[in-house]
C-alpha cells in the first residue's frame, strides 16, 4: 500500500479522490482510505496503513520473553487478554513448561469474557457507523460489567497482562465463580433484547442485508478468518480446528451464516457471544482446585531460555486467527518474532468488496469487519 501521490493530470473528470482518514469518525482509529469516487459511489479503494506502527516485532527481538508480555495486549487492545494468553502459551510450548489445570481452565474463562466484551463493543461501534448512537451506550454498559469482573482478577481494564509462563499472575478468588455467573445472568437476556432492538429494525436490515458480500473464494484468496469468514459460511474456528489450551474439553458450536453480508457478520457475532457464555458456564462448573502457577515455576522472575527451535502457534482472537511465530536460538530473547494478525488480512479483502458501493455502505462494511488498526500496524 503506497504513500500518497499527487493527483495525476490524466485523472478522468467524472471521478474525484476523497481522502477518508486517518482522522475520520468511522475509520476506527488511524486507518486511511484513499477513495476514488463517482458522485456517491466508490470506484476504487486504497487502504493506507501504518499510522500506528510501533514495531512490536522488532521490540520482541530486544526484550526477554517476559519483558514482551505487556506488548501483547497492546497489539489488539480490544481482545488483549487473548493475545496475552497466546504469547504465554506459545512460549510455554516452546520451552516445555507445564501448566496447572486450574490455570488452563481459568485462561479459557477470562479469554471468553474478553471475547464477549470485544464483540459487545463492536456491536455498539458498528451501529454508530450506521448512525444509531444509542446501542453504543447500551453495549458499553454491559461491557462495563465484564470489565469490572476482569479488573478484579487481572488488575487492568483494557491492556491485560495477567498470564505468566506456567499459569496466571494471581489466583481467581473464591468468590469469582459467583460474580462471573452474575455477569452471565445479566448478559443472557441481552441477546434477545438485541434481537428486538437491532435485528428486527427495518432500517438496520435494509442497511445490512446484501451489503458487502464476501464470497468464500475471496475469503480464501485473502486469508480472511474469524467471524468475517464464518459470516461467509465457512465453519472454521481455531478453537475447533486446532484446539489449544483447554478448549478441547468444552462443547460449543461454530455459528455460521451463508450470506457473507454485513447482516451475516452481525448475526454470527451475536451467536458467538451465546457460545462463549456456554463455554464459560461449562468451564466454571469444571474449574479444578489446586495451584494457579506451577510450583517452582519461573513466573516472570527467572531468565527463561527456550531451546533452539521454531514454533508457530495460533489462537482464535475476537477478530480471527492470531498467529505467533517464534524463532529461538536458545537465548533469553527471541531471535525473531512474527505476528499474523487477523485484521490485516480481513481489511485487505475489503479492497475487493468495497468498489461499486455507496459511501454509506463502505462505512457499514468497514464497521462490520471489526478492524483494530493498532493490530494491523503492530
Amino acid at each position, binding site marked *: 500500500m503506497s504513500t500518497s501521490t499527487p493527483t495525476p493530470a490524466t485523472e478522468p473528470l467524472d471521478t*474525484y479522490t*476523497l481522502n477518508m482518514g486517518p482522522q*475520520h*469518525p*468511522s475509520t476506527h482509529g488511524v486507518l486511511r482510505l484513499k477513495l476514488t469516487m463517482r458522485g*456517491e459511489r466508490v470506484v476504487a479503494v486504497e487502504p493506507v496503513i501504518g499510522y500506528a506502527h510501533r514495531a512490536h516485532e522488532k521490540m520482541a527481538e530486544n526484550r526477554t520473553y517476559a519483558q514482551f508480555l505487556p506488548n501483547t495486549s497492546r497489539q489488539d487492545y480490544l481482545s488483549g487478554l487473548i493475545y496475552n494468553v497466546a504469547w504465554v502459551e506459545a512460549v510455554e510450548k516452546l520451552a516445555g513448561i507445564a501448566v496447572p489445570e486450574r490455570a488452563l481452565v481459568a485462561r479459557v474463562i477470562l479469554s471468553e469474557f474478553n471475547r464477549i466484551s470485544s464483540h459487545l463493543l463492536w456491536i455498539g461501534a458498528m*451501529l*454508530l*457507523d*450506521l*448512525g*444509531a*448512537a*444509542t446501542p453504543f*451506550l*447500551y453495549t458499553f*454498559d454491559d461491557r462495563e460489567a465484564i470489565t469490572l469482573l476482569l479488573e478484579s482478577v487481572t488488575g487492568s481494564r483494557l491492556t491485560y497482562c495477567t498470564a505468566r509462563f506456567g499459569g496466571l499472575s494471581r489466583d481467581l478468588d473464591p468468590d469469582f465463580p459467583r460474580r462471573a455467573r452474575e455477569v452471565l445472568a445479566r448478559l443472557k437476556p441481552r441477546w434477545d433484547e438485541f434481537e428486538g432492538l437491532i435485528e428486527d*429494525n427495518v*432500517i*438496520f436490515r*435494509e*442497511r445490512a442485508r446484501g451489503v458487502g458480500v464476501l464470497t468464500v473464494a475471496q475469503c480464501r484468496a485473502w486469508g480472511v478468518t474469524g467471524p468475517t469468514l464464518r459470516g461467509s459460511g465457512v465453519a472454521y474456528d481455531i478453537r475447533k480446528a486446532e484446539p489449544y489450551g483447554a478448549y478441547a474439553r468444552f462443547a460449543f458450536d461454530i455459528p455460521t451464516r451463508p450470506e457473507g453480508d454485513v447482516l451475516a457478520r452481525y448475526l454470527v457475532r451475536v451467536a458467538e457471544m451465546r457460545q462463549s457464555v456456554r463455554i464459560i458456564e461449562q468451564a466454571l462448573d469444571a474449574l479444578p482446585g489446586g495451584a494457579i502457577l506451577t510450583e517452582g515455576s519461573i513466573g516472570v522472575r527467572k531468565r527463561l531460555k527456550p531451546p533452539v527451535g521454531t514454533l508457530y502457534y495460533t489462537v482464535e482472537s475476537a477478530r480471527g486467527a492470531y498467529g505467533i511465530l517464534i524463532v529461538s536460538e536458545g537465548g533469553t530473547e527471541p531471535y525473531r518474532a512474527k505476528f499474523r494478525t487477523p485484521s490485516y488480512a480481513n481489511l485487505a479483502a475489503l479492497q475487493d468488496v468495497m468498489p461499486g458501493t*455507496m*459511501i*454509506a*455502505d463502505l*462505512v457499514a462494511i468497514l464497521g462490520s469487519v471489526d478492524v483494530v488498526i493498532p493490530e494491523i500496524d503492530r
Partner: protein
Amino acid sequence: MLGGLRDLLAGAIGHFAATVLLGAVVIMTYLAFNVLFLIWLERKVSGRIQRRHGPTEVGPHGSLQTVADMVKLLGKQILTPVATDRFVYVLAPLLIFLPTICLASLIPLSGAEAFADQPYGLVVIIALSAVSVLAIFMAGWSSNNKYAVLGGMRSVAQVIAYEIPVLLAALAVVLVAQTLSLRGIVAAQARGVPFILLQPVAAALYFIGITAETNRSPFDIPEAESELVGGFHTEYSGMRFAMFFFAEYTNMLVLGALGATLFLGGWLGPWLPGPVWLLLKAYAVIVVMMWMRWTFPRLRFDQLMTFAWKILIPVALVNLVVTALVVGGAG
C-alpha cells in the same frame, strides 16, 4: 398586552414600524430561548433513552448547560479556511436562519394573535421553508471541502424529494378545510374534529416529511457523521457553527407548530391559553422526532430517495385524490 404596547409605541414611531419592531423583538427572544430549551430537552431525552441522566451540573437539572455551551462557542475563534468562497461562506449561516424567523411570525398563536396572519399563510410558509436548503447548499459549496459538497448535494436532493409529500399532505388538509389561511384551518377544526382523525395518512406523511426536511435522524444524511464527518457544516466553527444549530432547532419548532396547526387543532384546547396549547402540541411533535433520532439507524442515500419518490409521493397523491373525491362528493 402586546397590543397595548404596540399602540404606545405607535404614537412615537408609527403603527407599521411599531408592529415590525415588537414582532421582531418578541420572536427573536422567544426563538433564542426555544433553542436553549430544545437543546436541553434533546440532551435529556437522549439521556433517558440511553439509560443515563443527561446534563445535571450547570443549573437546576442541567438547564444552564446550553447557556454555558453558547458562551463557550462565543469565545471560540471564528475560523475561515483559506480555500473558501469567502462571501458565500459568511453569508450561508446568516441566510439559514432568516427564513425560519419569518416562518415563526406566520403561525397563528391563537384566534386573535398572530404576528403576520396571511390569507394564504400556508403557501408562504411552504415557499419560505425551502429557502433554508439554499443556505445549506451555499455552506457546503463555499466550504470547498469534498465532504461539505457531498453533504450540500445530499441536502438539496433530500429537501426537494421530501418537500413534495409535505406539500401534498398540506393540500389534503386545505381541501378539507376549504381555506389556505392557517387561522381558517384551525377554525375548521374547531367546528369539527382535529384533522389528524380525518387525515391520518396526511398527518403521517407530513411528520415523515418534516423529519427529513429538518435533517433529523433517520434522515440526517446531509450531516451523517459517520460518513461525511460534519457534512455541510464541516468547515464551520464558533458562532457560525452555532447558527446552523439555531436554525435546525428553530426549524423544528416552526414545522412542529405548523403540524400542530394543520393536524392537532392548533391553539384549541381547554383551560390553558391558546399559545400555550400550540406550543405544547408543537413540543410533543418535537419529542417524537427526538425519540426517533435516538432509536433509529440512518437510511442510506438511495434508500432515502426511493422511500420519498416511490412510496411517499404516490401515497400522498392517492390520498389527495381520494380526499378531493370525498370532499367534492359531499359538497
